[in-house]
């Protein structure tokens, strides 16, 4: 009975805060736009009964998503940006995690602190700070002009480059922490054994360190990829009109167009796309847990 109660708490949490809202969003995605409050029909009415209510629902909005190429282009572009940004974050994060794992024992808590430190300020403020750095009159351009590396200020803000910088910066800790924890557990004698058996340093890294940190790499990539795919704040603040991401489209559909049914359909499809990597991520975690037993 007590065990049942313990399991019931997370399930109740998930039901109330995830399943019920999702059911509501799903219902709205099957409704029609209307000038009313809330802006969709049908509304549930006890007098007409549940069957009449269900009969009025249809998949019209999902069909609409396939007809207007804005949507699938936004999905594809989001995927592209998310995949590239995840790869970039890995390229930046792996060396940092590797350096941390190899640092003297007494330094590691400090280094870990430095990685986590940005979380102490608001995410929004940090993104605004990047606007100050990357704008045409920003600090980056000032420094580059002053040192004479460039003559004309670089246009970075409001381009995809700025979006990539913002994503890599924001999600870097989510990459570093799992990779670091995988590298930290790596037994140093394995590298020595590889060298002893004829590997150069680089070869030992490629044949032993990389494969053994793979669970950390996979976990880090998913932790970056999943939130990046639906990212809305970074593309709307740092990206320009050319930056097409589904999170931005979703926001505009909801707040500018006030077309809740279409916006809900966009959200449902986004969730379905995300289910695939989430399931893969779970499987990776499970496999890792089994291997450690």
């Amino acid at each position, binding site marked *: 009975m007590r065990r049942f109660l313990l399991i019931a708490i997370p399930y109740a949490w998930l039901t109330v805060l995830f399943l019920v809202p999702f059911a509501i969003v799903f219902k709205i995605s099957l409704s029609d736009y209307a000038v009313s409050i809330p802006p969709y029909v049908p509304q549930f009415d006890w007098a007409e009964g549940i069957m009449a209510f269900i009969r009025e629902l249809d998949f019209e909005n999902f069909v609409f998503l396939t007809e207007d190429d804005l949507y699938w282009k936004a999905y594809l572009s989001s995927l592209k940006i998310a995949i590239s940004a995840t790869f970039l974050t890995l390229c930046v994060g792996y060396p940092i995690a590797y350096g941390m794992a190899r640092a003297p024992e007494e330094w590691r808590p400090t280094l870990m602190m430095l990685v986590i430190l940005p979380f102490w300020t608001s995410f929004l403020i940090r993104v605004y700070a990047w606007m100050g750095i990357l704008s045409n009159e920003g600090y980056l351009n000032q420094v580059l002009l002053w040192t004479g590396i460039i003559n004309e200020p670089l246009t970075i803000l409001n381009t995809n480059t700025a979006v990539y910088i913002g994503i890599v910066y924001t999600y870097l800790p989510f990459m570093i922490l799992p990779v670091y924890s995988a590298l930290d557990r790596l*037994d140093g*004698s394995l590298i*020595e054994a590889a*060298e002893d*058996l004829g590997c150069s340093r680089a070869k030992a890294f490629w044949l032993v360190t990389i*494969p053994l940190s793979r669970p950390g790499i996979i976990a880090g990539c998913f932790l970056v990829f999943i939130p990046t795919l639906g990212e809305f704040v970074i593309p709307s603040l740092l990206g320009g009109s050319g930056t097409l991401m589904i999170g931005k489209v979703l926001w505009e559909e909801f707040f500018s167009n006030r077309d809740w049914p279409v916006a809900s359909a966009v959200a449902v499809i986004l969730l379905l796309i995300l289910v695939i990597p989430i399931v893969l991520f779970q499987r990776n975690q499970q496999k890792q847990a089994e291997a450690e037993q």
Partner: protein
Amino acid sequence: MQSSKFAPWDDPDAKPLIRFKNVTKRFGEFTAIDNLTLDIYEREFFALLGPSGCGKTTMMRMLAGFESPTEGVIELAGQDIAPVPPNKRAVNMMFQSYALFPHLSVWDNIAFGLRRDRMPKRDVEDRVEEMLRLVRLEKFAKRKPHQISGGQRQRVALARSLAKAPKLLLLDEPLGALDKKLRQDTQFELMDIQEKTGTTFVIVTHDQEEAMTVASRVAVMDQGQLMQVSTPDRIYETPNSVYVADFIGDVNIIQGRATPEGEETYRIDWSEGVQPLTAKSSNEFAAGQTCHLAIRPEKVAITAERPEDAANAVQGRVHDIAYLGNLSTYYVELPNGTIIKAQTSNTRRISRRTFTWEDTVWLSWTATAGVLLAN
């Protein structure tokens, strides 16, 4: 038996495979190896024995190439190995933790070193099969290291380090993780494999029994220095210091003052009002010099009556008995409070034991039973 035939260390013309020449290794302020000189010969099974922190692992890591000496030279087959990185040395190591690659199968672990040498695929397969046969693991080739037992892992590690047919194999506490029974079996297996492959083995261990069992020669180390390097029987029978005598096996140490009494014979006054002891020794002692008589418990006889022909005999009371199954160790307290250990084989059933607690007994030993040591 083998040591009578195989003894290159007694041959002045023999060329050592490994030569440590005045090697010193410091880690900051700490001196791990202190001006050490040592020769190890081909086909030897050489044991480095000592307590933890004595520098034995540092010696091994210098041979493997993971550390380099601060001073002095290490030669392998006549060549200074300092400039050779670990991956270019004809030396392989079996790690204490085994260091098997967890993401590779047993087969791939053994093939790892061979593939790095760009050996043809067919030859790699043959060699791996041969190694699997050698350690009797043919059936486990496809398993991952976490799917086999500790003893099997140990054999995979051995096969992997032997696969490249190194000139020298280093074994760092190879049997430390195994339980006693398995350890004893594996010791003989190791000796077998060493003989079959003709590889020179250097083993690091803190287990003196293990060193005595497997090694052709044992080096007893303490605080970065070699205390004694010799065959197991000589280390046991004629230790050169109280430290070595005490480290190897069980021993009674009696401190006293030596007085020469004829050729190589000394009288030892060791306690007021107790009859002096007699011991033969080839080591020279001046009259009145402090000396230590080291005598193994199994060389002390325990009897009810005073034996008539014994060179040394003392009377005492049985203070304690340690029953080991095959042996019994009697802790006999002498009137002056000294405790002397005497060991006997339990040839009769325990219910028929001759002596029991609080019995008055005589301990006796011959003049040549002990070793007289200066320090």
